């Protein structure tokens, strides 16, 4: 009976994992973008998920969904394989690494949303004519969509590795929740971490600065003339 239940759970997980994160209807919207994420956001560590706690929950889930692999020392308890444990731990470490930035700078215009993060690439959500356009290179594909007022960014990498971020802005526009899920074909259980950010205003600079090609950054207290 327990074997049947495990198989059913596995089949369900497998069916779910074949669903694309960004469904077709999420790639389109009409009129203005459903939410405004623009601005500077700083990390609110007090609300963040604790990585170890999340890892424990994920481990328990892995145990519950493990194939019927009896532990000779504790009959009846289903243990995940060392490879599965290793994969889950790897997902957790990668999720922790990816969600490390303490400041997000989000620029949003009619067609694009760019999410700048320290020590990482800027996530790009490009929508032209209200339809999401994938950003692609030889190593992966990044695509976004709108799930209601949530912006969802999905990065597809080789070996079935996926990184998904869900951005939700609070009603007053001052808080941002980012739910990051890292999954892989090598692990039956994905790893999800929540990070919270508060909006802040950057201090206006006393200098007018401009990036130039040959002189790098050029600043002036008055009008800039190149």
């Amino acid at each position, binding site marked *: 009976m327990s074997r049947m239940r495990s198989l059913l759970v596995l089949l369900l997980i497998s069916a779910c994992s074949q669903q694309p994160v960004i469904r077709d209807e999420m790639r389109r919207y009409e009129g203005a973008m459903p939410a405004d994420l623009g601005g500077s956001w700083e990390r609110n560590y007090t609300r963040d998920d604790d990585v170890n706690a999340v890892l424990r929950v994920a481990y328990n889930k892995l145990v519950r969904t493990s194939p019927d692999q009896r532990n000779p020392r504790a009959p009846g308890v289903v243990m995940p394989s060392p490879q599965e444990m290793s994969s889950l731990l790897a997902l957790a470490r990668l999720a922790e690494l990816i969600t490390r930035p303490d400041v997000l700078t989000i620029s949003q215009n009619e067609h694009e949303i760019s999410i700048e993060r320290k020590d990482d690439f*800027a996530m790009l959500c490009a929508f032209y004519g209200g339809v999401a356009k994938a950003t692609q290179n030889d190593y*992966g594909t990044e695509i976004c969509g709108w799930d209601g007022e949530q912006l969802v960014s999905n990065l597809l990498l080789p*070996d079935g590795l996926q990184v998904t971020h869900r951005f939700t802005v609070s009603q007053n526009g001052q808080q941002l929740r980012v739910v990051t899920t890292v999954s892989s074909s090598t692990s039956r259980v994905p790893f999800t971490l929540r990070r919270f950010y508060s909006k802040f205003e950057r201090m206006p600079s006393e200098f007018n600065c401009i990036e130039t090609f040959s002189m790098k950054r050029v600043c002036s207290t008055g009008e800039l003339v190149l």
Partner: protein
Amino acid sequence: MLVAQTVFLLMGMLPQLAVAGPFPAETKPILAEDAHDVAALNVSIAVFDPGVPADPRSHREQQVFPRIREIEAMFLPFVLRETLAGTKAWGAVRVVPQHDVAAELLLTGEIIQSDGEVLELKIRAVDANGRVWLDRAFAATVDNQELFFEIAAALQAARAQLSKKELTDIVEISLLRYANQLAPSAFGDYLHEAADGTFTIIRLPARNDPMLGRIDRLRRIEYVITDAVDAKFQELHEEIASTYNLWREYRRQVIEYQVEDVRRAQDTQSSAPRGSYEAMKNRYDNYKWNRITAQEQETLAVAFNNEIGPKVVAMEARVAELQGWVDQKYAEWHRLLEELFEVETGLR
């Protein structure tokens, strides 16, 4: 300032030109053999087509920076001009903002690819006769100057195929087409245009035709303005050449980095077991570094435009001013010449 003074002086000369009547004896009528060595045709190089794909969504993928392409479209014709002038095989070689259909030899071009490693241009050369000398792509991978030398050689080879009579016809047809644009009543029936766009001379005006003399004077005035426009392209070239060369060098390096990225990704692909943290981080980092390189390139494209943009805008404004002056005067000359022709032929 010099250009402004020249324009002012020429504006003062205009009424005198228009009512001058028969030319003084020392002013020779313009027939090809008197004008210049027919082999050394005057060449007009139009500002290139930047070749920017219409769909803005493809710019990022194709690594096309539209504003920089527009700058290149003004910059590269000048490199071609310098190369042709350097051969001393041609008459005046000028960069012009618009297609000059009456040019003795008109060169037009489109930028197919320009990414620091490869420069590919599609060049079309058509003479006043409507004969196509060249219509093909030229590409260079290391030294761009080689591409321009190749175009120069192809043009000389095309010219070598023509007889002296054919070259003479080009000069004469060029003048007659110009005259026809300004005074169609007087010069409308000297040329026949075939269905394929080529022209043949039906008859020539008299050597001492006063109307042709006036046309020649006006064309020379227009050349002075064209030279002023050309000088603006030269100034732009001098101002941005070093920054542009830095940009191309940077783009070339980016391509090298991308090749290295591919090599590194291949080398590290199998070193960590699948499902391990190292393998996952490797997959993520491969994507990340490629995107960071692309984003850095976009940032530097903006920086390039910040630096060069104001110079280009100023030059465009000055060229537009000069071109506006030519267009305005052109309409005035057209009206005056038509009136003079009516008076002289007694049609009124």
